[in-house]
């Protein structure tokens, strides 16, 4: 190996491996060395395990030597610390799971390992994926590699920072309300939340089961397609996994965009969006038009209720999912307690951070006797109305576009004292989780302060190949996605 470019794409890495210009072991060593050098500054990784990673890399090299042609054989990847991997500590960003060693491997990670990918380590995240800035992690904040005074976004903040800083060529995240797309924007990456049910949730620590979805972070749409090919697939272990044949998400990448109809919801371009963000998005839409797409104004009148409905549904499901952390079977146990009830209460009070406790309390309240109809049922009805808005929109357009977030990467502490302010950062992303549609963010410019702007693409159910085609063609015509921090 000559000097390896840590900002190489997955496609380039795969090509270099195929041409035997580099080995899986050399790649693993390269990224481990960078991670060990830069992690004290960025805090993107929670766990690195050099021996495990190098053993996996040697196994990948042996597979290649024996003629194995798995699609991503030897390409390194880092995983959000919400994915269980047998034998790896899996913390979910929480003191509750500080010493938890996963006893089995999540299906998504197993699928990626079958495709030949080598695990570089486990990535920092907001505690139990609850946050939009990576400030709720028990293991400390993650720094945005573009500007160390700003947040990387969240909840998959470590996943975004690691790839942006060249500490991994790609990573996995999860997206319950925007946790892949918003950090992808803040760190100038391409990130995809697939259709609900495409990627198995088995072995991913549950936050809100009807909203959680796994997806990739990478530099390009092409890389996201390659990664999704490896991640997706039916899994009998997940009751909501879609039983359908595997598809090749790269199949439409090369298609011209002539005839593509892009819907622009007036609700995504109104007040609340920073003017310099709106300008960057408008300029990017001009690129799409030059590539042959047409744009049409649409309206999604109920989307404004996404955030309120989400803050009923997500905490309700979280309060139920997180009831498993009882200080008995696994996780943190308080040192002193009077009886069993006191053991539960103290273990949970100590093991969970403030934001997680707030959401458990909200969820407990909205599900409690006498409030269910007013909250959970009403939120379910709004979910239906939002889904019907999109159904109407797809009669006149193929994809929906707008800014990924109303403002760019903000300073540490800017929103951490006001949960509502923090929640409103996800105002454009949450609707796709409530409906289950696929959505992604790709780099499309910078705002006046030089921070990155993301183009948000929402597609109809199972329309990932079309979304990736659009983003890939955009990336062939522009160079925003090729920029990386000088770190």
């Amino acid at each position: 190996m000559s000097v390896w470019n840590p900002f190489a794409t997955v496609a380039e890495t795969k090509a270099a491996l195929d041409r035997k210009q580099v080995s899986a072991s050399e790649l693993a060593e390269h990224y481990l060395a960078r991670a060990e050098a830069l992690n004290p500054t960025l805090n993107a990784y929670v766990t690195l395990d050099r021996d495990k990673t190098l053993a996996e890399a040697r196994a990948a090299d042996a597979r290649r030597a024996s003629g194995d042609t798995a699609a991503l054989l030897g390409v390194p990847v880092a995983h959000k610390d919400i994915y269980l991997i047998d034998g790896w500590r899996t913390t979910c960003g929480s003191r509750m799971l500080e010493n938890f060693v996963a006893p089995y491997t999540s299906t998504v990670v197993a699928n990626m390992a079958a495709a030949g990918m080598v695990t570089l380590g486990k990535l920092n995240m907001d505690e139990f994926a609850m946050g939009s800035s990576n400030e709720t992690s028990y293991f400390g904040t993650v720094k945005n590699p573009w500007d160390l005074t700003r947040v990387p976004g969240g909840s998959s903040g470590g996943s975004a920072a690691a790839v942006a800083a060249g500490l991994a060529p790609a990573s996995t995240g999860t997206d319950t309300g925007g946790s892949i797309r918003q950090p992808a924007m803040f760190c100038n990456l391409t990130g995809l939340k697939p259709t609900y049910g495409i990627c198995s949730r088995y072995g991913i620590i549950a936050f809100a089961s009807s909203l959680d979805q796994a997806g990739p972070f990478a530099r390009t749409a092409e890389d996201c397609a390659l990664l999704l090919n490896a991640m997706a697939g039916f899994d009998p272990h997940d009751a909501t996994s879609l039983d359908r044949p595997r598809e090749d998400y790269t199949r439409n990448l090369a298609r011209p965009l002539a005839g593509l109809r892009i819907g622009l919801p007036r609700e995504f371009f109104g007040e609340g969006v920073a003017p310099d963000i709106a300008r960057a998005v408008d300029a990017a839409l001009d690129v799409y038009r030059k590539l042959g797409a047409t744009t049409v104004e649409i309206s999604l009148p109920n989307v404004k209720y996404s955030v309120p409905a989400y803050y009923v549904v997500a905490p309700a499901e979280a309060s139920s999912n997180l009831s498993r952390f009882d200080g008995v079977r696994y996780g943190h146990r308080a040192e002193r307690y009077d009886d069993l009830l006191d053991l539960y209460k103290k273990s949970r009070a100590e093991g969970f951070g403030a934001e997680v406790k707030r959401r458990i309390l909200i969820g407990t309240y909205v599900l409690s006797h006498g409030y269910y109809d007013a909250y959970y049922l009403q939120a379910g009805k709004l979910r239906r109305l939002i889904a019907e808005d999109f159904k109407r929109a797809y009669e006149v357009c193929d994809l929906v576009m707008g800014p990924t977030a109303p403002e760019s990467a903000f300073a540490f502490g800017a929103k951490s004292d006001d949960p509502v302010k923090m929640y409103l950062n996800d105002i454009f992303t949450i609707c796709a989780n409530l409906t289950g549609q696929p959505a992604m963010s790709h780099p499309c410019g910078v705002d006046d302060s030089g921070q990155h702007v993301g183009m948000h693409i929402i597609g109809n159910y199972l329309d990932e190949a079309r979304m990736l085609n659009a983003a890939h063609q955009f990336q062939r015509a522009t160079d925003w996605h090729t920029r990386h921090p000088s770190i």
Partner: protein
Amino acid sequence: MSLTTQDIERIAHLARIAVTPSDVTDVQAKLAGIFQLIDEMQAVDTRGVEPMSHGLDMVLRLREDAVTETNQRDKFQRNAPAAADGYYLVPKVIE
């Protein structure tokens, strides 16, 4: 809608989370803002709308009633705060 300190203490008990008086004050203030946001959805007339509990309105699959998992008790119990002889240890419940 605003939650009283008694409401907070009640839901904290239901959620099995110990709270101190200063926790209650802080949670009360933060939840007041959050419920103001949530209550915006009460303005929508949703009579006759079928609630959607799930993005894809799918039907849960059935499977053969057959054993598919093997016993891995020892492996799982390695993560337990206190276990002995295959049991999870908790404070005495019955005198």
